[in-house]
């Protein structure tokens, strides 16, 4: 048997969690997210500065020599748990994880990439992959689509990473060669856009074979750590459901004393603790560069996506009529959870990836 993954949280990870949670509790609770989403621009630039320049979360994957924190995927996963709990509108998954991991898998020492990585690590700039948000790590890249629909956080990006036949290009969104047209997303807290980039625009930062594997590495890191965001969403939904059903009385008893409801929440708790093990295994496999990483990521995605959706659906239902209102933030979690279940590859896609990795073939 190989060495098992480290599934616990280290003390520095606990400290990081406490710092991020304190900031989000203070500055970005769910009602605040709702207010901002309604304003048409869900992002809070001051919050992003506090997260990145203040706590340094954007540079966790980036080596210190490039201006990052030189930490790793385990730490970034803890940040995503917290961002998931608060359904925070921030381009963390897209820029600080997926785009950053893509650039790190290119020649990170080349001056162009190093400079961009430093800017991303410091939170001064935001980069996103110009791919539909549903793209799985093992899917063929849809290069040459025009426009590319469903690019997450493109409206907030300074730089697009554009995969083309002959390599990966960095294109400034401010350039006249780029059009970013906002779409109306199911998840109000993670904007989607249709992106058009003139052919030939931008700077080629990786040639074809490297570009393909680098994009896949970025998508793998994104999918693996998305599981931690899903864990955070599920945790918040369970805690809110428990809190509400303890307080709310019907039929002269607290709702939470009814066995039918208790069993549903206990079941959800089982799913949440299991999702935690799966998400930690994926983060650890990515952090250690384990050859098991594609399997650990597919496993975490196949499990955690449905758990977050189930938790959010239960949260709405257990809140009854209150859960159905725009005013109560449960819908933000539901919309994020349901979108996340398609993001970076659907549950079914990840199960197929697992089947290939574990030799469980389809009927002939």
């Amino acid at each position, binding site marked *: *048997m190989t060495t*098992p*993954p*480290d*599934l*616990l949280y280290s003390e520095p990870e606990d400290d990081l969690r406490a710092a991020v949670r304190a900031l989000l509790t203070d500055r970005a609770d769910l009602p605040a997210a709702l207010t901002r989403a309604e304003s048409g621009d869900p992002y809070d630039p001051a919050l992003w500065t506090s997260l990145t320049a203040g706590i340094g979360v954007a540079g966790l994957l980036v080596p210190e020599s490039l201006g990052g924190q030189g930490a790793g995927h385990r730490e970034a996963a803890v940040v995503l748990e917290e961002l998931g709990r608060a359904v925070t509108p921030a381009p963390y998954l897209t820029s600080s994880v997926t785009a950053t991991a893509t650039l790190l898998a290119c020649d990170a020492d080349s001056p162009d990439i190093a400079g961009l990585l430093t800017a991303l690590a410091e939170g001064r700039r935001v980069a996103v992959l110009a791919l539909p948000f549903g793209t799985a790590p093992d899917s063929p890249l849809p290069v040459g689509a025009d426009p590319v629909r469903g690019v997450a956080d493109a409206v907030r990006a300074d730089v697009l990473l554009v995969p083309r036949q002959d390599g990966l290009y960095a294109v400034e969104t401010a350039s006249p060669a780029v059009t970013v047209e906002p779409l109306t997303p199911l998840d109000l807290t993670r904007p989607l856009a249709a992106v058009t980039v003139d052919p030939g625009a931008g700077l080629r930062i990786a040639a074809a074979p490297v570009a393909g594997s680098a994009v896949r590495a970025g998508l793998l890191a994104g999918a693996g750590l998305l599981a931690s965001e899903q864990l955070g969403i599920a945790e918040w939904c*369970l805690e809110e459901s*428990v809190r509400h*059903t*303890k307080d709310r009385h019907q039929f002269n*008893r*607290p709702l*939470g*004393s*009814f*066995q039918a409801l*208790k*069993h549903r*929440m*206990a*079941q959800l*708790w*089982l799913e949440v*603790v*299991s*999702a*935690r*093990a*799966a998400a*930690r*295994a994926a983060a650890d496999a990515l952090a250690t560069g384990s050859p098991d990483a594609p399997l650990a990521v597919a*496993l975490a995605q*196949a*499990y955690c996506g449905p758990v977050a959706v189930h938790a959010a659906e239960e949260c709405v239902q257990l809140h009854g009529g209150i859960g159905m209102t725009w005013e109560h933030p449960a819908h933000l979690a539901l919309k994020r959870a349901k979108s996340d279940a398609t993001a970076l590859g659907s549950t079914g896609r990840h*199960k197929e990836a*697992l*089947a290939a990795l*574990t*030799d*469980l*073939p*389809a*009927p*002939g």
Partner: protein
Amino acid sequence: MTDATELRTRVAELIAAHPPSGTGRDDFLRARFDAGLAWLHYPQGLGGLDAPRSLQSVVDAGLAAAGAPDNDPRRIGIGLGMAAPTILRYGTQEQKERFLRPLWVGDEVWCQLFSEPGAGSDLAALATRAVRDQASGDWIVDGQKVWTSSAHLARWAILIARTDPTLPKHRGITYFLCDMTDPGVEVRPLRQLTGEAEFNEVFLTGVRIPDAHRLGGIGEGWQVARTTLMNERVSIGGARLPREGGMIGAVARTWRERPELRTHELRQRLLTLWVEAEVARLTAERVRQQLVAGQPGPEGSGLKLSFARLNQEISGLEVELLGDEGLLYSDWTMRRPELVDFTGRDAGYRYLRSKGNSIEGGTSEVLLNIVAERVLGLPSEPRDDKDVAWKDLAR
């Protein structure tokens, strides 16, 4: 302070004094107990050294390397997992000295006389009576117990019985150590839906138990029993497994080796269960890492629930996957196995036996209540049996 180095020295001394090649199995185990190397976290003189439990692996590895015989934790599971920790916590010095050594060595097998035909999940409703004989001070026990594994092999039993029916049900119970060879103890095999008699019914008629075999105070049996039950729940479902090490492994192997059995519908179920089994394995590994790190979390209380459901679903899938072969069963002859062995059996047996996984050691419904109340802090349902004398409760 005991450390790993000192323990290695003690193991070497034990091996030198009792070379495994020239020492009988039981004699070696007794010597190991006397050297304090049986269960390190137990007190000196009772098989331990008051040492941290985490160091046990040092001793076990050293003894295994020397080819020393081990006691058989599976065969003596109830004694080791339930009777011993309860005797350690509530027993008198005489009781500890009398019972722990033969229990650990396996000279004396234990069984557990808790459940009754009318008291399963509502265990505190039990009706077996223990009445004090004023002349001798002995207790005279009458009643019926059920689902008693190993009773036909057991020398001793842990027993709870009602000693005061005028008190509310949790308060009138007392805990005893019962000699299974006493006249009045009758063990009958209880045949289950698998065809086997893995458990027993135990009839107690005028069984005389000396007061010296009472464990804990009169009327305090429920608190004592809770120690036993907590240890039972810890011991079920905590084994460390490799990937595909549980029942999912058998199904996955059949899938790979028998392409003619594959259908699309079965594959979807197989993939879902493969994911859930692997995640359950990681969850158990996480619990294990928490224990090693000295940070036990509540996650362990969910493992039994997860494994029970998975065993049932996977074994159900396996019967269907096997098609015509799944229609066959190995043998309906009534047997009395000493151990439950899922891995060495066929799919039909696994399917049928796994139905017990969500009942034995606490039904899944009761365990979900425990998670909801103790972990999530949800309120209990209203109860009307707590302040009523047991004799006045509806039965």
